[in-house]
Protein backbone atom coordinates (compact mmCIF):
# COMPACT_ATOMS: atom_id res chain seq x y z
CA UNK A 1 0.00 0.00 0.00
CA UNK A 2 1.22 3.48 -0.84
CA UNK A 3 -0.85 4.99 1.98
CA UNK A 4 -1.49 8.70 1.39
CA UNK A 5 0.21 10.33 -1.58
CA UNK A 6 0.27 13.98 -2.64
CA UNK A 7 1.11 15.68 -5.91
CA UNK A 8 2.96 17.84 -6.64
CA UNK A 9 5.74 17.81 -4.03
CA UNK A 10 6.74 21.41 -4.67
CA UNK A 11 5.32 24.29 -6.65
CA UNK A 12 6.04 27.96 -7.19
CA UNK A 13 3.13 30.21 -8.16
CA UNK A 14 2.79 33.86 -8.97
CA UNK A 15 0.16 35.91 -7.15
CA UNK A 16 -3.21 35.43 -8.82
CA UNK A 17 -2.43 32.08 -10.43
CA UNK A 18 -4.51 29.02 -9.69
CA UNK A 19 -3.58 25.44 -8.97
CA UNK A 20 -4.93 22.17 -7.66
CA UNK A 21 -3.26 19.89 -5.13
CA UNK A 22 -4.14 16.23 -5.37
CA UNK A 23 -4.36 13.80 -2.48
CA UNK A 24 -4.92 10.09 -2.98
CA UNK A 25 -5.29 7.29 -0.44
CA UNK A 26 -5.49 3.56 -1.00
CA UNK A 27 -6.70 2.55 2.48
CA UNK A 28 -10.41 2.88 1.72
CA UNK A 29 -10.73 5.59 4.37
CA UNK A 30 -13.98 7.52 4.61
CA UNK A 31 -12.54 10.68 6.10
CA UNK A 32 -10.03 12.97 4.46
CA UNK A 33 -8.49 16.26 5.56
CA UNK A 34 -6.39 19.13 4.25
CA UNK A 35 -4.09 20.94 6.69
CA UNK A 36 -1.56 23.70 6.28
CA UNK A 37 1.62 23.90 8.33
CA UNK A 38 3.23 27.22 9.13
CA UNK A 39 6.28 27.78 11.37
CA UNK A 40 5.40 27.95 15.07
CA UNK A 41 1.71 27.31 14.43
CA UNK A 42 1.42 23.55 14.18
CA UNK A 43 -1.09 22.29 11.64
CA UNK A 44 -4.41 23.98 10.95
CA UNK A 45 -7.39 22.36 9.27
CA UNK A 46 -8.46 23.92 5.97
CA UNK A 47 -11.27 21.64 4.76
CA UNK A 48 -12.34 18.09 5.39
CA UNK A 49 -14.61 15.42 3.95
CA UNK A 50 -16.63 12.75 5.74
CA UNK A 51 -17.32 10.76 2.59
CA UNK A 52 -17.46 10.76 -1.19
CA UNK A 53 -19.32 13.78 -2.49
CA UNK A 54 -19.19 15.68 0.82
CA UNK A 55 -16.93 18.50 1.98
CA UNK A 56 -16.95 20.94 4.88
CA UNK A 57 -15.01 23.95 6.10
CA UNK A 58 -12.33 23.69 8.72
CA UNK A 59 -10.51 26.31 10.71
CA UNK A 60 -8.92 28.34 7.87
CA UNK A 61 -10.99 27.76 4.69
CA UNK A 62 -10.80 31.20 3.07
CA UNK A 63 -9.13 31.23 -0.35
CA UNK A 64 -9.42 27.45 -0.81
CA UNK A 65 -11.95 25.10 -2.36
CA UNK A 66 -12.10 21.32 -2.27
CA UNK A 67 -13.78 18.46 -4.03
CA UNK A 68 -14.20 14.75 -3.29
CA UNK A 69 -15.65 13.19 -6.41
CA UNK A 70 -14.09 9.81 -5.70
CA UNK A 71 -13.63 8.21 -2.30
CA UNK A 72 -9.89 7.83 -2.74
CA UNK A 73 -9.17 11.38 -3.92
CA UNK A 74 -9.42 14.76 -2.21
CA UNK A 75 -8.51 17.85 -4.22
CA UNK A 76 -7.53 21.22 -2.80
CA UNK A 77 -7.85 24.22 -5.11
CA UNK A 78 -6.44 27.72 -4.93
CA UNK A 79 -8.39 29.91 -7.35
CA UNK A 80 -6.23 33.03 -6.99
CA UNK A 81 -3.07 32.42 -5.03
CA UNK A 82 -1.81 34.97 -2.50
CA UNK A 83 1.58 35.19 -0.75
CA UNK A 84 -0.21 34.39 2.54
CA UNK A 85 -0.89 30.94 1.12
CA UNK A 86 2.81 30.13 1.04
CA UNK A 87 2.90 27.07 3.27
CA UNK A 88 3.34 23.33 3.44
CA UNK A 89 0.09 21.49 2.77
CA UNK A 90 -0.64 18.09 4.22
CA UNK A 91 -3.42 15.71 3.38
CA UNK A 92 -4.59 13.10 5.87
CA UNK A 93 -7.14 10.31 5.98
CA UNK A 94 -8.75 8.10 8.62
CA UNK A 95 -11.32 5.33 9.08
CA UNK A 96 -13.38 7.21 11.60
CA UNK A 97 -13.41 10.63 13.14
CA UNK A 98 -13.01 10.35 16.90
CA UNK A 99 -10.79 7.51 18.01
CA UNK A 100 -9.16 6.75 14.74
CA UNK A 101 -5.64 7.75 13.80
CA UNK A 102 -5.17 10.15 10.93
CA UNK A 103 -2.50 9.11 8.42
CA UNK A 104 -0.62 11.87 6.66
CA UNK A 105 0.83 12.30 3.21
CA UNK A 106 4.37 13.60 2.58
CA UNK A 107 3.25 17.19 2.00
CA UNK A 108 3.27 19.77 -0.79
CA UNK A 109 5.50 22.78 -0.39
CA UNK A 110 3.92 25.84 -2.04
CA UNK A 111 5.63 29.17 -2.60
CA UNK A 112 3.54 32.09 -3.83
CA UNK A 113 5.54 35.04 -5.12
Amino acid at each position, binding site marked *: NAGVTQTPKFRVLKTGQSMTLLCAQDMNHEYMYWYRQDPGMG*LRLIHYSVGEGTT*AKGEVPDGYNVSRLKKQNFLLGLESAAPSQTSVYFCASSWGIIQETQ*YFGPGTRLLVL
Partner: protein
Amino acid sequence: AQSVAQPEDQVNVAEGNPLTVKCTYSVSGNPYLFWYVQYPNRGLQFLLKYITGDNLVKGSYGFEAEFNKSQTSFHLKKPSALVSDSALYFCAVRGASYNQGGKLIFGQGTELSVKP
Protein backbone atom coordinates in the same frame (compact mmCIF):
# COMPACT_ATOMS: atom_id res chain seq x y z
CA ALA B 1 -12.39 25.69 23.20
CA GLN B 2 -9.95 22.89 22.60
CA SER B 3 -6.26 23.69 22.76
CA VAL B 4 -2.88 22.07 23.05
CA ALA B 5 0.30 23.58 24.44
CA GLN B 6 3.84 22.39 23.97
CA PRO B 7 5.74 24.69 26.31
CA GLU B 8 9.20 24.00 24.89
CA ASP B 9 10.15 25.01 21.35
CA GLN B 10 13.30 22.91 21.60
CA VAL B 11 14.58 20.08 23.77
CA ASN B 12 18.25 19.09 23.78
CA VAL B 13 19.31 15.68 25.07
CA ALA B 14 22.50 13.67 25.02
CA GLU B 15 22.35 10.28 23.36
CA GLY B 16 21.57 7.56 25.87
CA ASN B 17 19.84 9.90 28.29
CA PRO B 18 16.09 9.82 28.92
CA LEU B 19 13.99 12.36 27.08
CA THR B 20 10.68 14.06 27.80
CA VAL B 21 8.66 16.23 25.45
CA LYS B 22 5.88 18.03 27.27
CA CYS B 23 2.27 18.50 26.24
CA THR B 24 -0.73 19.93 28.07
CA TYR B 25 -4.24 20.13 26.73
CA SER B 26 -7.62 21.70 27.27
CA VAL B 27 -10.78 19.99 26.03
CA SER B 28 -14.33 19.56 27.24
CA GLY B 29 -15.19 15.97 27.96
CA ASN B 30 -12.89 13.02 27.46
CA PRO B 31 -9.78 13.77 25.42
CA TYR B 32 -8.29 11.67 22.66
CA LEU B 33 -4.57 12.43 22.55
CA PHE B 34 -2.00 11.76 19.86
CA TRP B 35 1.72 12.16 19.28
CA TYR B 36 3.19 12.53 15.82
CA VAL B 37 6.78 12.91 14.65
CA GLN B 38 7.97 14.80 11.60
CA TYR B 39 11.40 14.22 10.09
CA PRO B 40 12.86 16.93 7.82
CA ASN B 41 10.95 17.33 4.54
CA ARG B 42 8.63 14.46 5.44
CA GLY B 43 5.01 14.10 6.46
CA LEU B 44 3.80 13.40 9.97
CA GLN B 45 4.18 9.87 11.27
CA PHE B 46 1.91 8.51 13.98
CA LEU B 47 3.70 7.51 17.21
CA LEU B 48 0.99 6.68 19.73
CA LYS B 49 -2.42 7.63 21.05
CA TYR B 50 -4.45 7.59 24.23
CA ILE B 51 -8.13 6.78 23.92
CA THR B 52 -9.06 5.13 27.20
CA GLY B 53 -7.71 2.62 29.70
CA ASP B 54 -4.14 2.40 30.97
CA ASN B 55 -2.62 5.83 31.49
CA LEU B 56 0.75 4.68 30.15
CA VAL B 57 0.65 4.23 26.41
CA LYS B 58 3.44 2.54 24.47
CA GLY B 59 4.09 3.42 20.86
CA SER B 60 6.51 3.13 17.98
CA TYR B 61 10.33 3.34 18.20
CA GLY B 62 10.40 2.83 21.98
CA PHE B 63 8.37 5.92 22.80
CA GLU B 64 5.72 6.04 25.49
CA ALA B 65 3.43 8.69 26.91
CA GLU B 66 1.66 9.11 30.20
CA PHE B 67 -1.85 10.50 30.38
CA ASN B 68 -2.42 12.53 33.54
CA LYS B 69 -6.01 13.69 33.82
CA SER B 70 -5.55 15.85 36.93
CA GLN B 71 -2.68 17.77 35.34
CA THR B 72 -4.23 17.64 31.83
CA SER B 73 -0.91 16.47 30.46
CA PHE B 74 0.28 13.88 27.97
CA HIS B 75 4.08 13.97 28.04
CA LEU B 76 6.09 11.92 25.55
CA LYS B 77 9.00 9.94 26.97
CA LYS B 78 11.78 7.59 25.96
CA PRO B 79 14.19 5.93 28.40
CA SER B 80 17.26 6.21 26.18
CA ALA B 81 17.46 8.75 23.35
CA LEU B 82 19.03 8.06 19.96
CA VAL B 83 20.53 10.56 17.55
CA SER B 84 17.99 9.31 15.01
CA ASP B 85 15.18 10.52 17.31
CA SER B 86 16.06 14.10 16.37
CA ALA B 87 12.93 15.50 14.73
CA LEU B 88 9.91 17.75 15.24
CA TYR B 89 7.29 16.32 17.58
CA PHE B 90 3.63 17.30 17.62
CA CYS B 91 1.04 16.65 20.28
CA ALA B 92 -2.59 16.73 19.16
CA VAL B 93 -5.97 16.45 20.86
CA ARG B 94 -9.45 15.65 19.68
CA GLY B 95 -12.49 16.04 21.84
CA ALA B 96 -15.24 13.43 22.07
CA SER B 97 -17.39 15.38 19.64
CA TYR B 98 -18.25 15.11 15.99
CA ASN B 99 -17.73 18.82 15.58
CA GLN B 100 -15.70 19.66 12.48
CA GLY B 101 -15.30 16.08 11.47
CA GLY B 102 -13.27 15.23 14.52
CA LYS B 103 -10.48 17.57 13.61
CA LEU B 104 -7.20 17.34 15.43
CA ILE B 105 -5.94 20.37 17.32
CA PHE B 106 -2.15 20.47 17.11
CA GLY B 107 0.42 22.01 19.37
CA GLN B 108 3.04 24.22 17.78
CA GLY B 109 5.64 21.47 17.83
CA THR B 110 8.82 20.76 19.80
CA GLU B 111 12.15 20.33 18.06
CA LEU B 112 14.07 17.47 19.67
CA SER B 113 17.83 17.45 19.19
CA VAL B 114 19.82 14.44 20.38
CA LYS B 115 23.57 14.92 20.40
CA PRO B 116 26.10 12.07 20.32
